[in-house]
């Protein structure tokens, strides 16, 4: 079920009302049923895959806690392998197949394995990582095993964050399903405001700039220079607004019921370095990789070369997590490479003491600009359909043959102008709000300003949101 659908508009209030009306012991069960219903709206039979991974990790957690010595590790490894195997089959089998086929063709060998006719279960990458983090935390003794199967299932399947995160940690989320959350009008309103902001980012900005981005990236060879630059910048905002919009809706929906999900985005395009960007972008995933891959590899407490190796591997795998295509791998590698360079010249990139968004020094502005530029260059690989397309775009960014004419064509229609205008509006709000976030910024104003702001956002969503765009959330494909 999509957040931007009539179905969700009916589903959400019903589930929320039921949540507050039902007795405490019934709410996890209700949430589980609701989450199953939510998930089965996509492809119903894939609920069985989710059920299998839940069962594996639920029992793995119990066996790990009840075992000692090497047995604990065995159960952990079995759990990780089986969970990752599900991910590997559904997400990467065809990718590896096609690559092996290409190698076999190159050496004129026969490769008998055919392409598997399977669709990636929605949200597989997200809930796989979430359940993996549970098993790993139990292994390290940082999380007690959840013996209540319903609670554990809801932890994995909790519908607001089931299909696109935030990827939660058991220490943060699991205990919340045991607690009673009473109806709190302030919290409910806060959740609804956050959802509204998420809908604004997704429906008004992301889906409208997608029109231009899709047009250019679906046939990049028809475009040059300015058109490619603008489309890439717009994609940077499309993916940010799409994904952070989803996260806001998820966090807001959970907050309405009293659940506290982790922050997933923190105005990443105001970052003044790549490392800061990765502390602000998809925070739940980057911390997951840091805690479960980078640190076990040695992290930064190793030699200079080993640290760079760890960074490179972590980001390469992160790229692969995003999609079964070499473009994502290159994207990951590029970000890893950026961080290596930054670590090497760390003196220049040291952040100023004053971190608020309001006061920027000139050096900060330069850093902001170069960080954004580097990130946009990496987004070319993320968005392009192939490495060839990405290379064409990269090598034609400064070829200005008729590019102004192409650009004029894009923005001759009002539908395409609104995206950039609202991006500027969003950035202005975020700049003024700084680290307090838009909610905190608005909350400090008079009631007239607050109400005017929320009425304005609501009417912008109603008047300009693309409700029928059929643009799925970008991160659903991961």
């Amino acid at each position, binding site marked *: 079920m999509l957040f931007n659908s009539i179905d969700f508009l009916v589903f959400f209030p019903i589930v929320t009302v039921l949540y507050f009306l039902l007795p405490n012991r019934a709410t996890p069960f209700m949430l589980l049923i609701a989450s199953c219903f939510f998930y089965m709206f996509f492809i119903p039979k894939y609920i069985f895959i989710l059920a299998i991974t839940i069962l594996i990790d639920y029992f793995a957690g119990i066996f790990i806690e009840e075992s000692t010595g090497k047995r604990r590790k065995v159960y952990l490894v079995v759990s990780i392998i089986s969970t990752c195997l599900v991910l590997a089959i559904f997400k990467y089998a065809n990718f590896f197949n096609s690559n092996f086929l290409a190698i076999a063709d190159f050496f004129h060998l026969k490769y008998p394995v055919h392409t598997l006719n399977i669709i990636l279960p929605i949200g597989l990458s997200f809930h796989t990582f979430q359940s993996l983090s549970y098993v790993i935390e139990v292994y390290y003794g940082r999380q007690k095993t959840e013996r209540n199967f319903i609670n554990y299932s809801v932890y994995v399947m909790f519908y607001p964050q089931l299909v696109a995160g935030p990827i939660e940690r058991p220490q943060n989320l699991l205990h919340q399903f045991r607690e009673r959350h009473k109806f709190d*009008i302030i919290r409910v309103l806060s959740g609804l405001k956050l959802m509204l902001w998420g809908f604004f980012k997704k429906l008004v900005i992301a889906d409208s700039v997608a029109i231009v981005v899709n047009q250019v990236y679906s046939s990049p060879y028809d475009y040059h220079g300015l058109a490619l630059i603008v489309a890439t910048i717009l994609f940077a905002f499309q993916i940010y607004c799409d994904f952070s919009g989803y996260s806001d809706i998820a966090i807001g929906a959970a907050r309405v019921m009293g659940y506290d999900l982790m922050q997933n985005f923190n105005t990443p395009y105001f970052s003044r370095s790549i490392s800061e960007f990765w502390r602000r972008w998809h925070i739940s995933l980057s911390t997951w990789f840091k805690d479960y891959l980078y640190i076990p590899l040695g992290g930064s407490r190793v030699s200079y070369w080993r640290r760079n190796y760890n960074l490179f591997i972590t980001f390469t795998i992160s790229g692969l997590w995003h999609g079964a295509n070499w473009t994502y791998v290159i994207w990951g590698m590029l970000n890893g490479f950026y961080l290596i360079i930054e670590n090497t010249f760390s003196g220049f990139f040291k952040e100023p003491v004053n971190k608020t968004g309001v006061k920027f020094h000139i050096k900060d502005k330069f850093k902001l600009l170069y960080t954004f530029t580097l990130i946009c260059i990496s987004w070319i690989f993320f968005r392009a359909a192939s490495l060839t397309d990405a290379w064409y775009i990269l090598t034609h960014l400064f070829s200005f043959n008729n590019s102004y004419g192409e650009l004029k064509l894009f923005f001759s229609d009002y539908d395409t102008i609104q995206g950039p205008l609202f991006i500027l509006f969003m950035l202005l709000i975020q700049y003024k709000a700084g680290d307090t976030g838009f909610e905190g910024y608005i909350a400090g104003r008079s009631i007239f300003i607050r109400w005017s702001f929320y009425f304005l956002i609501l009417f912008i969503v109603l008047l300009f*949101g693309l409700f029928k765009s059929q643009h799925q959330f970008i991160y659903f494909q991961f």
Partner: protein
Amino acid sequence: MKKIFVKRISLFLFILLALLCIFHFAMDQLVVKDMSVKNYWLLGKKGNHYDALVLGSSRTHGGINVCQLKDSLKRNILNMSLEGTGYPEQYMMLSLFLRENSSKVLVLNVDVYSILRGFFSHPYHEYYYLPLISDSTVYANLKAYYGYKAVLWKYIPFYKYVDFNRQIGLNRLIKMYSSKNQEAYEKYQGTLLVNGSLKNVSDQQLVKNINTFLGEKNSISDTNIVYLKKIIHLAKQHNMQVMMVMLPEYHKVYAYQPSRKKIVSLFTSIAQTTNSKFYNFENHVTAYDITKLYNYSHLNAQGATVFTADFVKFFKPYVNK
């Protein structure tokens, strides 16, 4: 504390409802003033009497040159044809139009596409009529097809403008007021002549195109037949003579159109039972000349001129009665 919040929320919702109602009312008044939408241009006409109305889809929208007819016969003729419409929508438009206007003759486009089941993805461009949904005719027609959605559009303030914010929302109004070309239809009395010429293609490409064009949408729709008869019946109720006219298409496509012969005999039968006349121009000279068509099923500007010149002979007795 709780009471204050309840009061504030109630006030917020009240203001929201009031704003939605205000916007709803304002949009209802403003959207229909967009004369770049032919539907609104037609519905804006009141108290007129025409010697003839031409009604149909894109085939007659660009295939019959009404200005040419007017010049040669010195009659008041209007081309009411609407691009991409089937009989249900044409019936609704005619109903609304004849409430405020009158005519002696109806030239009604009949073709294979309007009778087939899935050719038009929806029987209405419903969004154009939503500002008028409080009208009983519009509401009855839309409710018959859209069911509960029509009820939502009618009774929930502003919902229809959210549901179709791209087609009839604020974007539309902004485009309307910034656009220079507002009165195009008035100059050509509703006709839209199209330039461009069909290129010579192989039979294989033709088949591929037809299959893409028609695909699996090749079963006759009883609903469309019903609405065709309703149009004729409506015209008769308003004392109008009806000419059912099948315009020429590129002759090679006829062999690939499923059920064509069956549909042609259906039109003949309907004409007989409704005391109308059916004119089949499928073998007109323009059907054999690719320079007179801009695609397989539509006459271009030149083709419309040639066809209209011949059409006058059949049309003249009707308007001279």
